[in-house]
């Protein structure tokens, strides 16, 4: 079984490497992406048409979530699969059964400083970090940012609860059930908007057709579609960030954590 896997990996790798020779040179101004084929250039099109196509000032966001939305959907799915893989591996066979903490905690070492200094700082910082994370998600159109970055920070704020108290306090707010549901929901939102476009007889993830759904014109609908998709990405990234921390820090037992 191991050998079959190895052969598959080597064959795929060789196949991919053999295609490298056909790529344009690095930074070649005449490559299809830069110079274009004939008089049509991809990057020129993005730079000149993004504003009138989608009303999104930030070209990168438009390319990421609209023009190449298919790619980003599977990036989100990769994150989702990574998280689910970690949960599946660690939760199914936690070392030493489900009893007892992973790291025995010595109360005399802790003193009062953990509770006072780190606890109070984190208590004050966490809501501020959360509002900043939501700000990053919401302003993906205007500033660099969006679902991935905001999701990482929102997940980090929950990790901070786990660091300043213990994992139980964090799990009380964001339980295992909730983070798995939220991770699935994020991917479902992204794929669901794509499917909605498909049902309305347009291409997958072609948000322009959703103008009836958002009660706007087709251009604004693309802008809103990008935002909705970013929210889905943020859901998945938040949930998976916290799920990975919770499982790795407690070795899959979800009891005391670090």
């Amino acid at each position, binding site marked *: 079984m191991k050998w079959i896997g190895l052969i598959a990996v080597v064959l795929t790798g060789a196949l991919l490497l053999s295609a490298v020779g056909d790529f344009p040179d690095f930074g070649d101004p005449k490559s299809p992406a830069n110079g274009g084929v004939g008089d049509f250039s991809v990057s020129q099109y993005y730079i000149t048409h993004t504003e009138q196509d989608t009303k999104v000032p930030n070209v990168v966001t438009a390319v990421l979530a609209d023009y190449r939305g298919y790619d980003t959907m599977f990036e989100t799915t990769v994150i989702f699969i990574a998280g689910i893989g970690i949960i599946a591996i660690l939760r199914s066979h936690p070392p030493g059964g489900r009893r007892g903490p992973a790291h025995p905690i010595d109360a005399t070492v802790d003193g009062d400083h953990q509770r006072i200094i780190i606890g109070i700082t984190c208590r004050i910082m966490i809501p501020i970090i959360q509002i900043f994370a939501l700000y*990053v998600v919401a302003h993906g159109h205007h500033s660099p940012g969006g679902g991935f*970055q905001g999701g990482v*920070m929102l997940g980090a704020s929950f990790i901070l609860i786990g660091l300043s108290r213990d994992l139980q306090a964090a799990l009380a707010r964001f339980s295992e059930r909730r983070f798995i549901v939220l991770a699935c929901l994020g991917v479902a939102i992204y794929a669901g908007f794509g499917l909605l476009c498909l049902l309305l007889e347009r291409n997958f993830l072609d948000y322009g057709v959703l103008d009836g759904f958002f009660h706007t014109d087709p251009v604004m609908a693309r802008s809103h579609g990008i935002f909705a998709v970013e929210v889905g990405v943020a859901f998945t990234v938040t949930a998976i960030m916290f799920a990975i921390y919770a499982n790795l820090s407690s070795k899959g037992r979800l009891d005391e954590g670090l």
Partner: protein
Amino acid sequence: MFETFSIIAGAILLLLMLPAFYRVVVGPTAIDRIVAVNVIGTKTAVLLVFIGVIFGRVEMFVDFALAYGMLNFIGSLAAARYLHRVRPFYGKGGQLAEAEATPTERP
């Protein structure tokens, strides 16, 4: 005038990361390296503001700096917490361990 000054100051700040980097490489203890990485992180956050001023897009780079600072803070807290609870390097990096013949191990 102010832009030239910012570029020079930013270059000096970048050079000042070298002493911290020396600490990352030399150690001698694991936590010394973590502290030095933390110092480099703080300097990077400030450097991002420099870059924002030079490019004239401060409002954008402030977000970067703040996000970087936040993740730096969370990272150093997590590292400290890990060393505190798990103690993977217990007694190995301290000067006492070098003097003693028998290494101390955590039960």
